[in-house]
């Protein structure tokens, strides 16, 4: 059966795009390959690592588990949307830098897109809530501690001393 192509009209980081794509094109590949928004990283393509997390209509989702055609008429935000046009980092990005919350930086975009949405809904989380929210994003470099610290910094929350 011929798959053909389908039209996608979508708004990404506030800009409207119209593209003809194969239905099977993954959203992650669409963003990276067709829109040249390569800040979204692909880590596993089976929905576990979280590196490819973007926001669709404000909610974090795995872009490797959606087809590009599914963001037709939807709003997508990627890591490229976080910093101000003049380069000023988003508070979470700045906290990541201050706290050394990234090493190789490959998981970082997905974590930023997850945790910026989390902080929008939960402005003052405790450490347990931060760790829970972060648990769908794998990082192989940092052991998470500095990431947790960076998120807590933005929230103005203290680090916990020991597990409950």
């Amino acid at each position, binding site marked *: 059966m011929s798959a053909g192509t389908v039209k996608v009209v979508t708004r990404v980081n506030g800009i409207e795009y119209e593209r003809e794509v194969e239905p099977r094109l993954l959203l992650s590949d669409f963003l990276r390959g067709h829109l040249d928004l390569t800040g979204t*990283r692909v880590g596993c393509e*089976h929905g576990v690592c979280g590196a490819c997390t973007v926001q669709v209509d404000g909610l974090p989702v795995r872009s490797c588990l959606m087809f590009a055609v599914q963001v037709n008429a939807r709003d997508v935000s990627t890591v490229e949307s976080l*910093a101000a046009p003049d380069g000023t980092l988003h508070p979470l*990005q700045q906290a990541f830098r201050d706290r050394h919350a990234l*090493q190789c*930086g490959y998981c970082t975009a997905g974590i930023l897109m997850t945790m910026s949405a989390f902080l929008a809904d939960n402005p003052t989380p405790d450490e347990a809530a931060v760790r*829970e929210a972060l648990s*769908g994003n794998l990082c192989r470099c940092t052991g*998470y501690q500095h990431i947790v610290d960076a998120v807590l910094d933005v929230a103005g929350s203290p680090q916990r001393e020991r597990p409950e």
Partner: protein
Amino acid sequence: MSDETLSRSGDSWLGASVTRNEDPQLLTGRALFVGDIKAADMRHAAFLRSPHAHALIERIDTSRATARPGVVAVYTAEDLGDLMRPMPMVVPPAPVEGLVFNQRTHTPLAGEKVRYVGEPVAMVVAESRYIAEDALADIEVEWAPLPVAGDLEFSAAPDAPQVHDGLAGNVAAIARQSKGDYAAARASAHTVVRRRFLYEHGMAQPMETRAIAARFDRRTDQMTVWASTQAPTSLRGGLAAVLGMGESDLRVIAPFVGGGFGVKVLMYYPEEVLIPWAARRLAGAVKWIEDRGEHFLATTQERGQIHDAEIALDADGRILGVKDDFLHDNGAYNPYGLTVPINSQCSLFGPYDVPAFDSTFTAVYTNMPIASPFRGAGRQHGVFVIERLIDIAARETGIDRVEMRRRNLLQPGDFPVNHKVIFQDFTELTYDSGDYPAVLARAAEKIGYRRFIEDEQPALRAAGRCVGIGIVNYVEGTGIGPYEGARVQVLANGRVSLATGAGTQGQGHFTSFAQLVADQLGISPREVDVTTGDTDRFQWGAGTFASRGAVVAGNAVHAAAVAVRGKALALAAAEFDCEPADVLLEDGVARHRGSNRLIPLGELAQRANPMRGAVRPGAEPGLESTQYFGPEMGTTASGAHAMIVEVDPETLMITIRDYVVVHDCGTAINPLIVAGQIHGGVAQGIGNAFFEKIVFDSHGQLLSGSLADYLLPTSLDIPRMTLDHTVTPSTLNELGIKGVGEAGAIPVAPLFAQALEDALQLPARGVDILEIPLSPNRLWELATGQA
């Protein structure tokens, strides 16, 4: 921005927790990784891999794949011409006396026979990766499966299926190393403890899989290769050799690299060789991004060893000798020589005074993916064995485990300590410096060892809680040769360019190396632009592995910066008509102490490259210097980890209540980065100890082939860690640096074993934990007597 608040440590950048130069690019998504490389003529490759662990290839038919629209080419072994030969050894075997070593390296594609599941047998190049993967299904292969050498002990038996023809059994290597007279030590011992230990290390699983893109320019006959590699200079040399190209016609760029942990060192991986080969053959651009499914089979792993080990002690619990014979799962080929088992063997000494030592390992070919170093590189196995032997011996002699460790530690006055066995860097294993008693004492204090075992644990146990404590030591040989180099150049715009051949995969070299330069030239680290992975910018070096970046490349950077400083001072002194000692370099200018006259560094650089006049013999133009650093031998870092853990006595799920690391990596260039390295190492150690398990069945089929099955720890699995350190500078380099990259990962498994054993009071039931990785299921079996 936080830049304005950058501050030195005292009067130097060395030792300052400078936030990273590279972060803005990475945080905003602008950083370039190999997957981001675009070209109008870019084609995409996919590999057909063996579904069998051991089989003959009877026939391959690629005609349907070739005919598929969008497919550019399909290659099998018979298309490779003279590339179809065993690839070179990456690391030759260490010169151990009496060594048996049977070299068997892989070919870029399997020819007549496959030896592990995942071994590539055909390559498709197509207009897109989607199409390339479609075409894989079009290739027809007739297989004749062969018996499989799967399990390590099974494969070591004389009658096991033979992985390679022409060998006696599956012996890849046998190496015996000894010191003193172990038999005599044993004969005089008060206590001898002997156990069999199984240690499986796992997979590196960097978040970015392997990736390589190549573009051949038919007008210049030159090739550019972008590779997610830890060793761009080595890769260039290796590719030039196997492809028959001149090094100067090959440029290898390692852009940002999403983690490596050992498995992205040059391996002559089939894809690493074939993508450039295909780009040249097609006179265009070809890219291959390993997908995570492939990564589980196509990237090297570390896997397992079986140790039959014993320790002999006197009545006071002092070690008289250690003996350990072990099997090492080498996988199907051995391009990386003996690095892993040699490290395991050498790690058996730990930080202890071991007068007599006798160890023989047998590396065994199996029908498994190739084993090569992964963060720790075999040290975990050895550290597990010695630490466990001490724990068990302590119990059997009634001596407290911390006290027994303390009694056996090498003392600060003992250094240098030469163990008289050959280490992975081919020199005799020698510890340069350390203060092991201080490290152990501090770890015991930080975790509250006495208080815990005397007060807290008894009270909690009385309340029915299963809580345990562990405390272990390790040493780590770091910073081995051969050498790295660096070029520092002051640019006309006043910024400073630094290039080195050692790659970067997240270690912060863009910042820590900049700090070393900044100190010499009186500038901010923000004014130093660091290139770490472009052979057109710096072509010499070995790579980033073995905890050697800061030690070896760092000292080369320092040397180059010192040389440029000398040139700047001399040039400014000539301008000021004064002695160099009267010139200060600060805030980006050269300043005359007396008159306060100043010349900006950039202007000084321009004057060093004059349009008229002459460069005198013996002098060089430019404010630039290239320097190399090659240590005689590795420098030895050390540390102790301590942990309090609670176990649910029914489910056997664990909660880590406290985790303490005390480490000594000599001089720390950037403590913030060092902390990150330790945290990440511990996380990988915890993964290895309790979460990550590579499971193959007896047919060599991987059962843990996704991230849903191979369990990388999450933010909920890794505890908050408390770090502390002592500083015993290395005596082997000017900066006193020791490596720290692998340290965190090394001693976690024996720590888990000790603490969990304690929590569950297993010894009281006659059960020792002798294996890694553990799991709730395994703990339940051990706790219920199902050995």
